[in-house]
């Protein structure tokens, strides 16, 4: 392997961090087997792999959360072993978690200094902490008031706070665990710049992501894990995203998006006129045709989710909504589901599924009325429905008696889809259908969406991933700051056009209104 060290870093032979033959066994399951890995100063090393490939276990070993069953860790060529995360931090290895782990009621500065507050005698030195926090955020190219309460910040801003907090620890290696999972393209680009700056300072970066184009852009080297084994490790320049996908899945991913015939001009199923969701969306008007897949693009905070939640009655909203020729005003999910409009939340774990309940309970929760015999729930019919859902939606689970929270993200999304499809809705609104889902499951979910449309149902897909909208939608509406600012269709469906509308570089027809 050639030594490739951008950012002007040294090219001495001893890597900053080295793992040799790292293995981890839980019970009798080999989660990781013989992983050799090096991180050099001043490089970004990406780890990619499907869910369950062993990425997070590897990260937890490097960050001191787990001890390897076999194998050795070396720093500067010297063997080390970590008693815990704090021990790893003392060796200069810090981890930026995928989830935002901040205290929502505290300020930016209070969060950044949480657990290592600066003090003057017995009192806290708020001024020093505020200055330090402002500086830390500025170093990351951000601009935040250190006195701002975290719960009022956007997801991207919170992530910046989280990164600032981690980087306050003296560090030589930073591990990013899927940092862009909930960021828009614009925010992602800003984060990649932050990572480039960190690299330029000679720090070693380990970068875990599902988003292959992004990996191609940022990483110097790529290591691919599959089923707990290292299947390839290459210079990024030698690989295209398609090669990475093939290595991850272990076969050719011929096509991620299903073939679809452009929907002919068919009758309108849902017509929305001048819909307002106070504080989030204004004056939204659109039309959804039978058998159509309509996309909603935009930056996070553009009001897409809130508009959909307003439509189905989850939030107060006003406007003229016509569904299958009749004016409707949904007062809650109860009424929208009954009419045949289903909404699948972007927050699967928080709003979609009861994670501590079994699959059967989750599947039938929204349609229990169909499983009542006399006064009782017919458990046999519920079990039959679960069997059918597992088959129809290819929900992969060893046993049917597990909790929804134990399923992988992709299988949770399939279960949620199956749950809503039990109601046989004519309109299905899916918010971020593939967030946090690996490529194999993504492909399947796109196929399900396409086949639902093929059955004559109308689908709305809200997504921050433009390639997926372009890949599966017939038309895409773009929202910015609570308004629908444009529609792209056919040849105009490209990322450039959408980004320009979403960021306001280009103004669309809707803006005059």
């Amino acid at each position: 392997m050639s030594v490739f060290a951008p950012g002007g870093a040294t090219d001495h032979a001893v890597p900053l961090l080295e793992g040799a033959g790292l293995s981890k066994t839980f019970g009798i399951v080999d989660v990781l087997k013989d992983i050799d890995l090096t991180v050099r100063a001043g490089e970004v090393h990406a780890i990619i792999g499907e869910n369950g490939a062993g990425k997070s276990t590897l990260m937890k070993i490097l960050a001191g959360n787990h001890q390897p069953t076999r194998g050795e860790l070396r720093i500067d060529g010297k063997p080390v072993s970590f008693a815990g995360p704090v021990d790893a931090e003392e060796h200069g290895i810090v981890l930026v978690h995928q989830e935002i782990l901040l205290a929502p009621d505290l300020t930016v500065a209070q969060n950044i200094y949480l657990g290592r507050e600066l003090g003057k005698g017995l009192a806290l030195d708020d001024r020093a902490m505020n200055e330090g926090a402002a500086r830390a955020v500025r170093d990351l190219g951000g601009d935040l008031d250190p006195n701002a309460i975290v719960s009022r910040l956007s997801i991207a801003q919170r992530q910046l706070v989280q990164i600032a907090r981690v980087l306050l620890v003296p560090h030589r290696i930073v591990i990013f665990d899927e940092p862009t999972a909930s960021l828009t393209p614009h925010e992602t680009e800003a984060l990649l710049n932050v990572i480039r700056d960190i690299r330029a300072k000679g720090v070693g970066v380990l970068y875990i992501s599902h988003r292959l184009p992004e990996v191609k852009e940022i990483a110097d080297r790529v290591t691919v894990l599959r089923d707990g084994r290292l299947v390839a490790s290459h210079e990024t320049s030698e690989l295209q995203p398609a090669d990475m996908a093939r290595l991850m899945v272990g076969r050719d991913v011929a096509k991620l998006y299903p073939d679809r015939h452009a929907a002919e001009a068919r009758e309108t199923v849902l017509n929305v006129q001048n819909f307002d969701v106070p504080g989030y969306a204004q004056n939204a008007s659109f039309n959804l045709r039978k058998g159509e897949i309509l996309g909603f693009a935009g930056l996070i905070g553009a009001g897409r989710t809130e508009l959909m939640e307003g439509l189905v009655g989850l939030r107060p909203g006003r406007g003229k909504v016509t569904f299958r020729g009749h004016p409707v005003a949904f007062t809650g999910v109860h009424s929208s589901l009954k009419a045949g409009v289903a909404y699948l939340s972007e927050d699967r774990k928080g709003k979609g599924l009861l994670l501590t309940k079994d699959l059967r309970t989750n599947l039938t929760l929204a349609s229990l009325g169909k499983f009542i015999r006399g006064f009782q729930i017919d458990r046999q019919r519920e079990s039959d429905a679960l069997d059918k859902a597992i088959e129809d939606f290819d929900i992969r689970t060893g046993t049917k008696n597990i909790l929804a929270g134990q399923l992988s993200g992709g299988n949770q999304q399939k279960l949620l889809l199956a749950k809503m499809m039990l109601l046989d809705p004519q309109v299905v609104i899916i918010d971020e259908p593939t967030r946090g889902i690996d490529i194999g499951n993504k492909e399947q979910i796109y196929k399900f969406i396409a086949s639902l449309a093929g059955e004559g149902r109308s689908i709305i897909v809200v997504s921050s991933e433009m390639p997926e909208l372009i890949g599966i939608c017939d038309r895409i509406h773009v929202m910015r700051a609570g308004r629908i600012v444009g529609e792209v269709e056919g040849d105009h469906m490209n990322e450039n056009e959408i980004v320009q509308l979403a960021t306001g570089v280009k103004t669309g027809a809707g803006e005059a209104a």
Partner: protein
Amino acid sequence: MNAVATDTTKAPKTSKDWDMAAIAPFVALALLLVLGYFANPNFVSVANLTNVITRSAFIAIIALGATYVISSGGLDLSVGAMVAFVASLMILFMNSGAVADPMLMLITAMMLALILGAACGLTNGLITTVGKIEPFIATLGMMGIYRGLTTWLSQGGSITVRDRELQQLYRPVYFGDVFGMPIPIIVIFVTAAIAAFVLYRTRYGRHVIAVGSNEEVARYSGISVKKVRTIAYIIQGLCVAVAVIIYVPRLGSTSATTGILWELQAITAVVVGGTALRGGVGRIWGTICGAFILEIVGNIMLLSNFVSEYLIGAIQGAIIIIAMLVQRTLMRK
């Protein structure tokens, strides 16, 4: 109690965690029976046990309602005061002579108690759901109101059933039996069976668990969270009314101090029974078991000379804390 608590955590680890949490209260009950036998062999006599279970009826039945409220994610601190309030109104009605025929009067009074209980529950429910006030504060306030109204109704004294004939007619509801089985025990098991059926087998029961487990998921699934919670409070009110109906014939009177600290005992029974205080898990038979455990602990203290019976309140307070610790240990696995 310490011995009991530690032993339940050591129950065989053959099955899954949630099975352990479900079995734990019954193991604790069995151990208590053994402990009781060693403390005083008379303890396990049929006569003594029937007596103990009969006396647990009020708390057991109220705790059934509390199981609904708690597993739907709520809390009701007003049940003790509600008992006093509903019982006072019931007796005042019986003393009013509004219905001449004693049998008819009794039936009307019982219906009135049920209606009053449901109305009190509805009030609690609406304040927490529509009024959007934390259940703790809302029912704490209602506890003061029910208690204060009772004190006012009784003018600080007691309210007694005056009609002798009516008293005689009503007496068997607490003191009577059917084929040797005391009526309060029958009432416990019948209400528990109904409660278990509704919670485990019906759509409403599934909704209670869903709302308590994750309110947002329930809302996004088209379930009316407010309706489910309000009905849970109404069920609690009805359970209080049933408890009142078997409580009034016992003494034939109420006072401003009737039902004091019953909310603590009811919540303790629920938690000891394995229902999660944060909602989402409801165990009806566990609750019944919890109520028995509370009464049996008191009984053992009375029959033995180890501990002064004046410490009963302190022991009950300790039980709820120990039960929470055990529950958490079982859930962590």
